């Protein structure tokens, strides 16, 4: 468990954050630029000292202003991948990778050099100088360097922010591989929700220096605070399911969600794979009677649990479809016409192609 409760004043900016996240796993700090994510990460790393508060990782106290504990950065064993790669220009890629490894106590070695090189695809880069690398390659080397310092926790502060969209795809699969193969807890800072969706299993939602919501990605996806960050079109329940049947010919798969089954567009997955999907609220249709003759592939029976105002024109309806909660964004007019309220039975219509799915190996 990573447990943080800190207060830090920086000029006019105040960071007041408290959260808990399970370890191992990836916890995402999600919020706008300037909301204090980097400050919080720096406090966890020890590069910044909080005015008050504590940072605890599993059963060790890293910072506690109350009892005067402040483990120095260099002995904390917390890896840090910064926004800019910060590779040492006077060392080769190999020298950069070995820098942290040499300084880690032999007893702590759990990730081998060969493993990291293979996992991050660095074999061809070892003899190069940092300035001969592309942006994506640099960030991969920075990742490898941090991993080889044998960290107990890995901090990733928007490691993709300095890369363009194409380059991001050069790094993201490696991050997924790290998550799936290593058991190092990670903190992933981002202001891109799709990165959070692909990587994290726990989310700390931040806004102007405070934590406004926290929990599993599924829980946070239902929280109204998220809407301010992702906009009305980004809102949607995030659900983790298991593939029960595949139809490679059509690029479709059956996904078990709670007690129901969702038929979704999904390629390159096998039966038993854990898959995360986001069902965007704006794409979901509600019906009070079972419709017929529609192209929609999924018709799930559910019960309305909550109706909340979204904005002037629309409302958000939470529907329990047998253990899984989905969110639907419908107009106020539709709500009135269908007489929807908590407790009412509805049919939830979900287009198979409107689900954003990401395969997990867990």
């Amino acid at each position: 468990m990573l447990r943080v409760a800190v207060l830090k004043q920086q000029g006019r900016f105040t960071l007041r954050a408290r959260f808990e996240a399970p370890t191992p796993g990836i916890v995402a700090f999600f919020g706008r630029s300037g909301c204090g994510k980097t400050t919080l990460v720096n406090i966890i790393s020890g590069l910044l000292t909080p005015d008050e508060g504590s940072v605890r990782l599993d059963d060790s106290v890293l910072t506690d202003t109350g009892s005067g504990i402040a483990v120095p950065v260099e002995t904390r064993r917390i890896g840090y991948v910064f926004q800019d790669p910060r590779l040492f220009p006077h060392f080769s890629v190999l020298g950069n990778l070995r820098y942290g490894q040499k300084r880690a106590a032999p007893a702590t070695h759990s990730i081998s050099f060969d493993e990291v090189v293979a996992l991050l695809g660095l074999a061809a880069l070892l003899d190069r100088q940092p300035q001969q690398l592309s942006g994506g390659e640099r960030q991969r080397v920075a990742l490898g360097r941090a991993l080889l310092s044998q960290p107990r926790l890995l901090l990733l502060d928007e490691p993709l922010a300095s890369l363009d969209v194409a380059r991001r795809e050069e790094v993201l699969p490696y991050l997924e591989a790290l998550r799936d193969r290593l058991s190092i807890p990670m903190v992933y800072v981002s202001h891109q929700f799709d990165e959070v969706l692909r990587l994290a299993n726990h989310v700390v939602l931040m806004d102007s220096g405070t934590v406004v919501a926290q929990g599993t990605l599924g829980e946070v996806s239902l929280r109204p605070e998220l809407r301010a960050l992702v906009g009305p079109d980004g809102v949607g329940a995030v659900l983790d399911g298991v593939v029960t049947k595949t139809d490679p010919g059509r690029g479709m798969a059956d996904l078990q969600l709670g007690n129901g089954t969702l038929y979704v567009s999904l390629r390159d997955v096998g039966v038993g794979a854990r898959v995360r999907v986001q069902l965007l609220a704006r794409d979901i249709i509600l019906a009070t009677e079972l419709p017929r003759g529609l192209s929609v592939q999924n018709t799930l029976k559910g019960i309305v649990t909550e109706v909340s105002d979204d904005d002037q024109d629309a409302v958000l309806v939470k529907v329990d479809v047998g253990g899984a909660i989905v969110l639907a964004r419908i107009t106020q007019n539709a709500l009135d016409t269908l007489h929807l309220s908590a407790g009412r039975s509805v049919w939830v219509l979900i287009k198979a192609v409107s689900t954003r799915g990401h395969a997990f190996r867990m």
Partner: protein
Amino acid sequence: MSDFPSSAELDALRLSLEVAARSVGFSLPLAVLAAWVLTRARFPGRPVLDAFVHLPLVLPPVAVGYVLLILFGVHGVIGGWLRDRLGIQLAFTTAGAALATAVMTFPLMVRAIRMALENVDLGLEAAARTLGAGPWDRFFTITLPLMLPGILAGAVTAFAAGLGEFGAVITFASNIPGATRTLPLALYTAIQSPGGDAPATRLAILSIVLGLLGLLAAELLARRMRRFLGR
């Protein structure tokens, strides 16, 4: 003009090189320390220290030489102690000439090293910290190597300037042939002697050639270093 350079001129040349080299050797570690303190440390007396380090730049060199004589002279506060305890005499010796030169060129060196230190990315040091490197470790593996171009530039500039140091050297170390009579002192002596025009000209030419070589070497070195650091 049969033997150019003459043995006396060769002596002066050799002595100039020796004095400049020894002065750089003296002051380099101290200059790195001073640059580090002036750039990174925060303490109340910093502006005073800064001004003190730069003092030789604005003082008449003769004044610097005279202050050295008071402090390091045979009967000086420090000079007397050095002679009694360690048997070292600085005034009127080659080592003394090097000390005077070191003091005079110290600000040049500190300035160059400071600039280099200010350009070292603190982010890289923070990264080294997260990778387990303590303060000294960071200094010797990250900060110092990245400052190297500036340190070399400072050393070469100080060396080149040291070849021509006159006022402080003649005041503190006097003008002793073979011991403290460096190129500029030999040049001055030649000008003062009747019929010394020809030797003076030769010495002047020697100084110019030496200066040019020094500057070219500095440029070449700087390029090499930039390539080494990949900039």
